[in-house]
């Protein structure tokens, strides 16, 4: 069902955890299946220095969460903003058809966390 890469990220998820005083937090629930993901960002300048996640969801949800954290670490927020659901799925070597929606969780949470970062910045100014 899942590719080796998906199973690897599911078994050894990268960047699991929380963050004290994150610069941005995004949480999304997957309306379709009830799964939840939360992502924390540590941003310096416009570079994503560190990232952590927590996910309640299926194998694909966990794997895409883990994958997306790897993909954004060290990137600028603009680069991170353009990471799409499809790109995450592709980076994992693909997902089963019925599981494509799971990748929404990861990308959406990321984008939401960046949005949160922007909001906080604006408040500071």
């Amino acid at each position, binding site marked *: 069902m*899942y590719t080796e890469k998906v*199973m690897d990220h*599911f*078994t050894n*998820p990268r960047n*699991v955890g*929380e963050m004290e005083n994150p610069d941005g937090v995004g*949480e999304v629930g997957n309306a*379709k*299946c*009830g*799964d*939840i*993901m*939360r992502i924390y960002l540590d941003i310096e300048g416009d570079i994503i220095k560190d990232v952590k996640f*927590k*996910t*309640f*969801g*299926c*194998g*694909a*949800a*966990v794997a895409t969460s883990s994958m997306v954290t790897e993909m954004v670490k060290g990137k600028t927020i603009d680069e991170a903003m353009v990471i799409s659901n499809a790109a995450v799925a592709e980076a994992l070597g693909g997902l089963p058809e*019925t599981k494509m*929606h*799971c990748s929404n969780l990861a990308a959406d949470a990321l984008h939401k966390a960046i949005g949160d970062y922007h909001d906080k910045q604006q408040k500071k100014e």
Partner: protein
Amino acid sequence: MRRVYLDHSATTPVDPEVAAIMMTYYTEKYGNPSSVHGFGRETKQALEQARNQVAELIGAASREITFTSGGTEADNLAILGTAEALRKKGKHIITSCIEHHAVLETCEYLEKNGFDLTVIPVDEEGIISVDEVRKAIRPDTILITVMHANNEVGSIQPIAEIGKLAKEHGIVFHVDAVQSLGKIPINVEEMNVDLLTVSGHKIYGPKGVGALYVRKGVRIVPLIHGGGQERKRRSGTENMPGIIGFGKACELAGQRMADDAKKQIKLRDKLMNGIVERIEYVKVNGPVGEKRLPNNVNVSIRYVEGESLLLSLDMLGIAASSGSACTSGSLDPSHVLLGMGLIHEIAHGSLRFSLGRQNTEEEIDYVLEQLPKIVERLRMMSPLYDQVIHSKQS
């Protein structure tokens, strides 16, 4: 790697004795039972013997057994066949909210085509109330279709009482006994059942074969038309090896039922209690004791998701199943758990272990050793569990 199969409600291995007989009918006694020659006659005889073996396990007469390609087809034949036969008499059908998709989808198909459907709710243990069925009966009710035992939570239904009700009102009564066959006694006479579905691959027989019991005098319109096999109820060249294997599996099930149940109840309770003792925030789904199938364990483990549990168990060689939305094509968690009143979030983290003849106490120990570690790891990843920990600490 070690492999522990605990998904016998999904399907079972074929008993070696059953497989050996089937083999003969694939390669040596391959005649078509409709043929006049010796190759045909020898299989024809075996066909009637198998029919008898199935009939005996449910207290029916041989002639009342129609072989099908499985439980799903038998459910369809029962429901669509009755609806078609009685459409002039009435258009109301009663079923329950915890039926297998083979029943629910078929009833819904009829609903879309002009029939009226009443879906009876269940209590929190997953048991249908006879009273609710009584209240649902209308003058134009033509069929009541409910399952004997539920495939997800193992709840055993009050079939004999519903049967009595159906009989009093002259309503055709269909029972899906796919999960109960060979696990608890079935008697179509005592239960007042008119149509009863059984399937081979849940009782150490082959996949691709099942049967519908049709009480003498009850009329159903065939689903599959053609050569007129099975007394014109089900056309198609008979799946002889499958049928013979199913017959043998029924014979063995009859002999072993009491022993199997005794052994499995012990393992079931050990596993269920062990999980509750070792893991926090666990809910047992379904009834306990007499009203539960001997081989079913179903628990909801909060703050973790079912598919992730399954995958993690699988990596340790443990095969189970889940009512999680994430394991099904549809995106809703199990309609059975939701029907029992579980909220989405809890239904999502449910796990079913279904025991079989070959399982050992040692295997249960292995599961009880591994499962808590898996849950711990997944909870560490879960944003929902965070909140529990935090609120505890504060």
